[in-house]
């Protein structure tokens, strides 16, 4: 057996990521329209940009998948001409790493809504960290900055935590996830 992710895992992760990459790309203008208001309502939907990592991990359940998915989705958004250019890649790496760390902290053994939400929150923190350099958000009025924090984290929980989990649950019912989940010891023992 090969170490690390198998080709099937990688290809499935990347296709999931690219689908979300397309959504990320479409999400840009939507985000933009909401954002012009200036009061950070747009932050509620920011969480969409963390979803690839969570969904891919919940489907494939292996180490490395969350990071790969988020980077691939960012790469996808980038090569489809996303409005934020290279910035997307940097954010992708940061957000992917953050989500990956949460899954690792639970030893890749938990796939529930709580862990998904935590991963979303971690990704949100990573994005906020980068935004200090990227968007001078430290120079916002404090109340405004706090709204930004609050809404972005709430959005992360809502979209990349709860929604992502529901989505994967619905997908599990179709049976397609069985394709990519590893076989268990019991399965091997049943061979006799």
């Amino acid at each position, binding site marked *: 057996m090969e170490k690390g992710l198998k080709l099937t895992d990688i290809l499935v992760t990347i296709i999931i990521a690219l689908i979300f990459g397309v959504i990320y790309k479409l999400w840009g203008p939507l985000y933009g329209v909401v954002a012009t208001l200036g009061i950070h309502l747009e932050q509620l939907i920011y969480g969409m940009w963390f979803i690839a990592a969570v969904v891919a991990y919940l489907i494939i359940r292996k180490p490395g998948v969350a990071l790969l998915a988020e980077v691939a989705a960012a790469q996808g958004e980038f090569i489809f001409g996303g409005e934020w250019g290279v910035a997307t890649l940097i954010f992708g790496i940061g957000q992917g790493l953050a989500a990956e760390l949460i899954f690792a902290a639970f030893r890749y053994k938990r796939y529930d809504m709580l862990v998904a939400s935590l991963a979303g929150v971690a990704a949100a923190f990573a994005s906020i960290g980068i935004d200090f350099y990227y968007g001078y958000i430290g120079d916002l009025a404090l109340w405004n900055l706090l709204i930004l924090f609050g809404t972005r984290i709430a959005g992360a929980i809502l979209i990349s935590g709860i929604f992502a989990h529901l989505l994967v649950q619905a997908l599990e019912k*179709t049976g397609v996830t069985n394709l990519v989940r590893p076989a268990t010891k019991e399965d091997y023992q049943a*061979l006799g």
Partner: protein
Amino acid sequence: MTTIASMTNMRLKFPGVDSLLFEDFSLSIDRGEKVLILGPSGSGKSTLLQVLTGLIPHAVEVPMKADALTIPESWGFLFQDPDAQFCMPYVDEEIAFVLENLQIPRERMDYYINHYLQQVGLNFDDTHTKIQTLSGGMKQRLAIASVLALEPEVLCLDEPTAMLDPEGTKLVWDTIKNVGEDKTVVIVEHKIDQVVDFVDRVILLDENGTIITDGPKQQVFDHHKHVLIEQGIWYPGVWEDYMQDKSRHITTPGNTEDTKPAVHLSDFSAFRGKVKALQVEEAYAHPGEWVTILGENGAGKSTLLLAMMNLLKTTGTYTILEQDYKRIKHLAEYVSFVFQNPEFQFVTNSVYEEIAFSLHLAKWDQEKIARRVNEMLELYHLEDHRHTHPYQLSMGQKRRLSVAASIVKEQPIILLDEPTFGQDAKNTFAILEQLDQLRAQGTTIIMVTHDLNIVKNFATKVWRMEDGELVMESPAPNYLEMLQPAVIS
């Protein structure tokens, strides 16, 4: 003769499934043999091919073990889905991908690319052609070319023409026969009329993956024909046997021309974006008629259905039971539509809910819904699966469900896009019979198909499409008569 591939006491189990798929399964194939493996869906035919080539367990993790296993030294694998075997966007790049894997030096790649394309009869002015622009048949031949680049001794073919039209099917099999002549070939198929003269040995599996029989083809076909029928295999003469068995005669509604037309199209056009994609001068369909829409790939058959469902921008006259379609508020009350891929039509999590869906939308009361759904479940043989997720059904069940869910409100007109595509014989006949019953009750059936047997045995009328235009409207028997010379030659 030398054995080229074999397995002794192979056991295999899919994760999450309770029972073993193969239990102490043994098989041996000799060099140069042409073997056909038959079996119902779920019998593990494709799985067997993957074990035989070592794809299981090396590429696909499925728990398995065997006392002894001989994998051929060089083999090539042709898969079913033309869109799921390429990893590169262009023809030359795809073959180059295989050459790269084999570490062929760059200087020799162009020569090999042309060489293998020529072997499968694909000629391009420029091999840097987008794979996406090729027809299904061409894609499969390209897949054969990239398999040939492996210079395999053994060819494994997993229903390579299941997703192709008759013309593509024939071309692909001709190519396979041509290149496979001096090789060992193992074929999994359920449409076997093109391959029977090519193979010499047939292995028949049952639904548990046990061998029912294994021997020279004539012997298998002579002694186990009932199994072929039972399993829904498309063997040569299956239609004749079926029609004889049924001894049914089409009750051609003689006086349809007198009744008011169910559908009337006149100077009707449809547009995709700004491009005109469809033109119909004049066409009629009456209650109790079965219209088949025939034509090449890309002739506009599906476009016609989409236009009749008012999913595209249209102009001209289109009446449904003598009402202008623009005046009809809910077209879906009159016309139902069955898409080619059933999965796209499923919107709920269970078979029961799927059929009940439109009834809920129409605000039927619960009791009435339950009664109607149960009736449909029984009619379409889905009673045992009422709580199953639609995606978990077999291909045949999915198709039956998509038909049942579409027509549950007994709309007077049914549009279907190749509903028998990729189905085994048993399911095909089951669907056709159900449609025929509806037709006999006065429903108008309008259906895209490539299958002339359906035209011959079920249809009453043919609409022929060419280049986005409906060029001919003709009673089915007349149409077939007109084709006769061509069919004989």
